[in-house]
């Protein structure tokens, strides 16, 4: 196969190209309106931003045509839309000199994000190759999580210690750690899920896992609690723990795990709440932000969240319009609180549209997890999609007061290099897996007559044991694949 020639009969990805044009047009329109609202003319750098964004988007489009022609055609335009709308919002804040808002930096990180995503699609030809990196990923993940705790490297910002500073650049390692953990969990769980699912006693209707199988979950619990306590960040901790519990459930279908996980997290959270005044402050602010005393508190008060609420309320149903809001009153309106700034200028309508676009990306990710044939791919795609949904929930839920506010950022929209870069990598992996899921297979599809006998499927089935494999009623489609992962699915089917 020649490296740079599209595969024969592969889709031309016309839909993606058309959607990309629409997405870019919306971003351009935003920047155009920002300029005319604030300066009565095109904003400075309008054409630079437009051309660079368009060039990057279509580069990614071409890379997909070459290297993942069957990949989902909606995900890329959806992400480009979010990214270019955020470009307009950050440009808008940059124009009125809001401290910290830096449109050219945002463009630079966007460019880097898309380029790295292209590289990932180019280099990783098959997502299954990542399975070899299971334990490497675990170590990388733990190292990344621990980095901000190293004195001199990590720095406390607004009470949370989730940043590291290297040579003038700041990074939020947790953003990258979530990818590493997703890879690790997928690899670990696909190998051990049967042990986790089958062994153990029943207690009050819940199948409890064996104590020795609890080892890894205890480690993850400890890691996320360490994050919570050491780095004082509920959001990141919730993100990791939620990711693990979610993927554990995906792999084992044991509600017991979720119950245990939630109970353990709740216990950890309560302990943290009772020990740390910082956490107590967050909870107080969450419960009663409009309280005058909390609002006036110099540090750790509710000023930011209340200003965010004011901004969103001012936006109302249809928003004040591009450039007509007051993001200068919302601290970090370009990063942590970009959701509120968008709500002010685009209104409820705009925010619901943005939420729906995220929902499309996540649901597409989950859809391809169902479509892909190997268990590792299913877990990885499901995990990545879920972690994005979870991150959105933690960020938006924090701003809109479903949960206490934390320090995570809105994927693709918040200004911040780590977040952009990491989430573009997530998208690259999602696209890679979707290509595998949608690629026409030479193997029989579900319902078709199985060719190889289940017993010949491979070593995996024997390894995990649990009764003689029967293929007919398995949800994975018996006899469809030839990998060990699929064999484990067959066994799972028996367990039902």
């Amino acid at each position, binding site marked *: 196969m020649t490296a740079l020639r599209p595969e024969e009969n592969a889709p031309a990805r016309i839909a993606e190209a058309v959607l990309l044009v629409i997405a870019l047009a919306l971003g351009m329109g935003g920047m155009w309106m920002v300029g005319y609202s604030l300066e009565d003319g095109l904003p400075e750098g309008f054409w630079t931003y437009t051309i660079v964004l368009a060039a990057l988007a279509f580069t990614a489009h071409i890379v997909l045509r070459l290297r993942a022609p069957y990949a989902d055609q909606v995900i890329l335009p959806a992400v480009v839309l979010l990214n270019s709308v955020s470009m307009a919002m950050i440009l808008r804040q940059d124009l009125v000199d809001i401290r910290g808002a830096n449109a050219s930096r945002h463009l630079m990180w966007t460019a880097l994000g898309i380029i790295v995503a292209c590289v990932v699609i180019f280099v990783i030809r098959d997502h299954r190759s990542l399975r070899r990196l299971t334990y490497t990923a675990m170590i990388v993940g733990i190292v990344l999580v621990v980095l901000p705790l190293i004195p001199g490297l990590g720095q406390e910002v607004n009470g949370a210690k989730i940043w590291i500073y290297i040579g003038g650049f700041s990074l939020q390692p947790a953003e990258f750690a979530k990818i590493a953990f997703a890879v690790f969990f997928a690899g670990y769980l696909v190998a051990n899920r049967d042990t986790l699912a089958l062994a153990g006693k029943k207690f009050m209707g819940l199948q409890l896992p064996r104590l020795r199988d609890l080892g890894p979950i205890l480690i993850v619990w400890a890691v996320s609690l360490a994050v919570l306590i050491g780095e004082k960040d509920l959001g990141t901790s919730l993100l990791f723990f939620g990711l693990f519990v*979610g993927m554990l*459930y*995906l*792999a084992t*279908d044991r509600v017991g795990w979720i119950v245990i996980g939630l109970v353990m997290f709740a216990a950890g959270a309560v302990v943290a709440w009772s020990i740390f005044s910082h956490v107590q402050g967050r909870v107080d602010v969450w419960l009663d932000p*409009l309280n005058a005393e909390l*609002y006036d508190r110099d540090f750790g008060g509710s000023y930011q969240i*209340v200003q965010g*609420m*004011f*901004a*969103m*309320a*001012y*936006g*109302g*149903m249809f928003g*004040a319009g591009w450039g*007509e*809001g*007051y993001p200068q*009153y919302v601290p970090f309106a370009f990063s942590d609180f970009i959701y509120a700034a968008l*709500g002010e200028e685009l*209104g*409820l309508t705009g*925010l*619901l549209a943005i*939420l729906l676009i*995220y*929902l499309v990306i*996540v*649901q597409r990710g*989950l*859809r391809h*997890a*169902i479509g892909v044939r190997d*268990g590792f791919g*299913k*877990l990885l795609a*499901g995990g990545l*999609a*879920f972690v994005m*949904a*979870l991150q*959105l*929930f933690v960020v*938006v*839920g924090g701003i*809109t*007061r*479903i949960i206490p506010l934390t320090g995570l950022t809105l994927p693709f929209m918040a200004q911040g290099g780590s977040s952009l870069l990491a989430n573009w990598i997530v998208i690259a992996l999602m696209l890679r897996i979707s290509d595998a899921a949608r690629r026409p297979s030479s193997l029989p599809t579900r319902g078709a007559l199985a060719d190889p006998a289940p017993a010949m499927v491979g070593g995996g089935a024997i390894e995990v044991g649990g009764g003689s494999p029967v293929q007919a009623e398995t*949800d*994975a489609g018996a006899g469809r694949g030839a990998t060990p992962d699929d064999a484990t*699915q067959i066994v*799972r089917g028996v367990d039902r």
Partner: protein
Amino acid sequence: MNATLRRLSTIVMVMFLALMVSTTWIQFVSAESLNSDGRNVRTIYSALARDRGPIVVGGEPIVTSVPVDDNYKYLRTYSEGDAGAASVYAPVTGYFAINGTVTGMERYANSYLAGEDDSLWLDRLQNLITGEEAQGSSVELTIDPKVQKAAWDALGDRNGAAVALDPKTGAILAMVSKPSYDPNTLAVHDSAEVTATSEALINDKPQIGTIGGEERFSVYGPTINRTINATFPPGSTFKLLTSAAAIEYDGMTPDTTIPAPNLYRLPGTSTDVQNYGGETCSSTGEMTLKDALAISCNTAFLGLANTVGKDGMQQMFEDFGFTESLDIPMSTSIGAYPGLIGGENDDDSDARIALSGMGQGSVRMTPLQVAMISAAVANDGELMEPYLIDNVRDSDLELVSQTKPSRYKSPFSSSTADALTEMMLSVVTDGSGTGAQIPGVEVAGKTGTAEDDPRSPTLWFTSFAPADDPQVAVAVVLENEGQSTDESTGGALASPIAAQIMQAAIAK
């Protein structure tokens, strides 16, 4: 795993649904209360960047938005930038500062001035369709520029306030507060300058005399509207209310004879109160109610309040609505009366009630409230609701709303009103308020000189005229301008001011 993936996708849906609900909650359901939160400056800022409507007095705009070439687009301009003229209207107009402080009519009529009021929905719909920027409505006030000017000039350099009402409608004809300020200095588009100016103004409290070699200052700065947001002991003007209660509840008449001793011992105490300078009200130790009011005999009214009793006095105070705040549309301060203030230090013993009979003790009222006593007497016991906005017109000058006068309270019957009018006439003809006489016009009034320890006494005059067809009711207060508690000082200093205001109102 596909089944769990599908279930997970349902969980994700639920999570997103929660986010959509919470976002809707903030942006739609609770948006109104968040927008009206005092800490939210957005509404004010957006109002600033808009072509705000003018405030009109006597057909002439006194506050306008002038287009300027900066980010705020419009500069709020008061009396065309004339500091002197702007100060005359400052207590009414208030000011609109870029640091988010908005007061007076600018604040309380903001929804009209900004073109955001619900009554302007048709204009807003038009703007939405045509894409035009919303224009503010003009707000025309009830203030009569001649009366306002007369009140301003008559008060001269004294600290105090004057308010004039049309007793038949409740329309406020004049509202002057001194010292005043120039709102233009607070409307400049320089945040630091605004902050510096407003801090200086807040701390620039006028000196109100020297007592015991020590300089005394008013508790109210120049930006406080003394007619509605400052309270003073009403002193002898309160004897009108005491008389009203005695006539209304105890069936007395102006000719009823009441005790007027040289000394009055406050019930339940060993404290004796005498008249000013130990003067004798009556050689017989008793006199008619009418005569007692005319010469403002203190001991007679202490006893009268004691006769009426706590319940009656409180009832009359409440029937005037003095314990409630009015929206004229500015929010007015409430008055204070023993037992109605609340809190641990609210002493409503018989001694305090007796003292209240002459407007001392813990009684405090705003000048507007004192004017409302005269207005109620003038209007046969029907107290009309005071208001400042006459009408509102949209940017096309079409009438949006016109205030219809409405009755506020009926504190007493018209026969009581007649009796009180008769008594108030004698105050001006041959009592303590002869200074308020206007040639050819029957004036009914009441003087007041209130002790305001540790400061000098506060002087009052409240009146209405003409007595047979009342057109104006006024209250004048001279904040701690008295040299002694001699009743004649209130009459001598405050009553001529009231006369000039009434004259301007009647001549119109």
